[in-house]
């Protein structure tokens, strides 16, 4: 999934200098953030639902083996089949075998992050199967040979003009003088082209937002309806989902669905929420005749037992990306992983190893907004800190960084020394700043001061002020 050796630092610098990306990223703040706030304000029960959703997931995860068995029984009862994939390669092989069994030449796909995680498209294409992404954003990403830059808004990094150029380049058989200067025209063109694919597809592959043990259903939420055409028209429907998507009952699914769209796009609910249970029944005039569910582990079972278990509650709403100042500054591609932002900074090291992904949990100011907006109350900053600790323990940070951390730790463990140093530092910085009140350059911290000034300390340290206010209170 992540590139073998991704250079996060230079990718981030490039992203900061990319004007069209910076313009596109403004849409994240303009749209998602304010819409989520408005949707939350309209539902006074939002925070109690968060607590309940967290409890639902914690209960399910601590009984995951049993709920998987219950889910599997129901899928089989309804005429479907369940396959288990311990790792990404197993998952790719199973899906390919199923497609070959179905004699598939054309496969349509609904949006699935698990599919991105296992690199499914390339694997099927290598076997001469045509694979078409049908979510508009994923379709554009596929045309460009890119990866999605956001888990729910794949082309948030692109402007309309870039998409128009891409359509003109790739849709050669359409008249050249056609208008494509508005989102409506672009959508209409994709709709018409993809309609042919939907109708011709042999196999439809979708992800799942939830799996329900009570009924053996997979739940797919979309606004476009592409997930439904993908799962309904071909003769085989394959669902690929990771094992932590499970919830016990329809009621539990409802609680989580009340949080999902509101946290993601700020909608009360997505246009379509569909539950698929088995293949078409005998009397049904439409729907697939075969239904398969692929359950992917790929590191999740290990997380169940380590300090990252809370991450398995994640419902992939994207709220942590939308509210992250780092994501907002550099976008998704700089992370070099299909899971960007705070959730990706926790998940990616688990999937590709901390040695490869060490920059991601380090690229955070720990401002805490991600945790504050997470509908599943996942302590993302704590877990990024846990990765930093592992990273340090493995000796990954450069020697200078380790030395600085050791020096700081030495002082921090000796309060008197720490206070004395802090006071000296405050005096030194105040004098260095002179009357300007800010420092534009600092020794040992050139990289930091390159892009901003440090406000100079204004006299006393925090500890001094605190001690004084305590004395005042005592009097």
């Amino acid at each position: 999934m992540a590139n073998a050796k991704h250079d996060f630092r230079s990718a981030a610098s490039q992203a900061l200098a990319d004007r069209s990306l910076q313009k596109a990223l403004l849409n994240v703040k303009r749209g998602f953030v304010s819409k989520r706030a408005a949707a939350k304000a309209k539902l006074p029960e939002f925070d109690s639902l968060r607590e309940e959703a967290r409890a639902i997931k914690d209960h399910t995860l601590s009984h995951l083996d049993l709920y998987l068995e219950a889910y599997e029984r129901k899928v089989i009862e309804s005429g479907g089949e369940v396959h288990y994939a311990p790792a990404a390669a197993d998952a790719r092989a199973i899906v390919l075998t199923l497609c070959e069994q179905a004699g598939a030449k054309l496969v349509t796909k609904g949006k699935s992050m698990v599919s991105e995680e296992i690199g499914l498209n390339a694997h099927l294409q290598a076997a001469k199967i045509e694979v078409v992404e049908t979510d508009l954003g994923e379709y554009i990403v596929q045309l460009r040979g890119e990866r999605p830059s956001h888990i729910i808004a794949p082309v948030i990094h692109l402007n309309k003009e870039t998409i128009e150029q891409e359509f003109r380049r790739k849709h050669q058989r359409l008249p050249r003088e056609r208008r494509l200067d508005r989102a409506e025209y672009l959508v209409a063109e994709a709709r018409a082209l993809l309609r042919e694919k939907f109708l011709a597809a042999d196999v439809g592959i979708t992800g799942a937002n939830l799996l329900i043990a009570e009924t053996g259903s997979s739940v797919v939420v979309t606004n476009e309806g592409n997930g439904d055409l993908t799962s309904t028209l071909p003769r085989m429907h394959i669902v690929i989902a990771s094992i932590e998507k499970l919830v016990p009952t329809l009621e539990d699914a409802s609680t989580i669905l009340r949080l999902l769209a509101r946290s993601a796009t700020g909608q009360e609910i997505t246009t379509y929420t569909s539950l698929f249970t088995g293949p078409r029944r005998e009397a049904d005039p439409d729907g697939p005749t075969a239904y398969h569910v692929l359950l992917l582990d790929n590191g999740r079972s290990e997380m169940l037992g380590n300090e990252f278990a809370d991450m398995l509650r994640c419902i992939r709403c994207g709220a942590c990306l939308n509210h992250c100042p780092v994501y907002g500054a550099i976008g998704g591609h700089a992370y070099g992983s299909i899971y960007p932002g705070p959730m990706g900074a926790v998940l990616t090291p688990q999937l590709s190893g901390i040695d490869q992904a060490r920059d991601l949990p380090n690229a955070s100011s720990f401002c805490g907004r991600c945790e504050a907006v997470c509908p599943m109350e996942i302590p993302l900053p704590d877990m990024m800190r846990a990765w930093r600790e592992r990273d340090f323990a493995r000796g990954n940070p450069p020697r200078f960084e380790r030395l600085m951390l050791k020096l700081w730790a030495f002082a921090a463990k000796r309060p008197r020394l720490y206070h004395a140093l802090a006071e000296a530092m405050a005096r030194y910085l105040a004098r260095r700043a002179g009357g300007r009140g800010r420092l534009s350059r600092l020794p040992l911290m050139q990289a930091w001061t390159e892009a901003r000034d440090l406000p100079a300390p204004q006299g006393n340290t925090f500890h001094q002020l605190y001690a004084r206010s305590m004395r005042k209170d005592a009097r």
Partner: protein
Amino acid sequence: MSAAEDPRSIVMGRIRASLGVASLDRARKASVERRLERHPHGTIPARARRGRAECLALFTEMLTAQGADMRHVLTRKEAVAAIASYLGTCNLPPRIRMGRDATLAALPWRDAWDIERAIGPAQPGDRAALSHAVVAAAETGTLFLVSGPANPTTLNFLPEAHTVLIEAADIVGSYEEAWDRLRAIHGKGTLPRAVNLISGPSRTADIEQTIVRGAHGPRRLLVLILG
């Protein structure tokens, strides 16, 4: 394949090892069975716990905000007339695709003699479809459509205009009430192939977060509340 190589056993074994549990723990099994049996609900939003009239108003308000066209009709005769006039307003030919739903079949179609009805799943050329929702939840203006010969799933997604009839008595407050209705019809723990919760016409905001209607599914959704 031997048991040790079987991928299912590998995954289950890893899960149990991480959780530090054995497969035959009675208390854990009982806790799972109890939850599946009782399916307790969580907080149901206050807006979904109001009287019938308020639920009806909320249902209409939510769907309108989400871009659906709403008509409240008191009689079956009016329902047919509303469908006919909607097709006209949308500039669509007087032809509608529908399944074998008994409620829809019992509408007084002779009053709309000029509307041609095609029975069966949707075909690529179909421009308008008519479905009957079994239940709807007012809390987010959400229609519940279930697959089967009565209301084939393709009707919900292929044609560009989708008309859905819901009887006023079938509009409940919350999702939980709607699931209980489905349990009463299909049995506990059993669902038909597809249950589609529909809360507006198809849309996308993938391009610069501009909302555009009619992404892949219907561009228009008419909801007819009957009674």
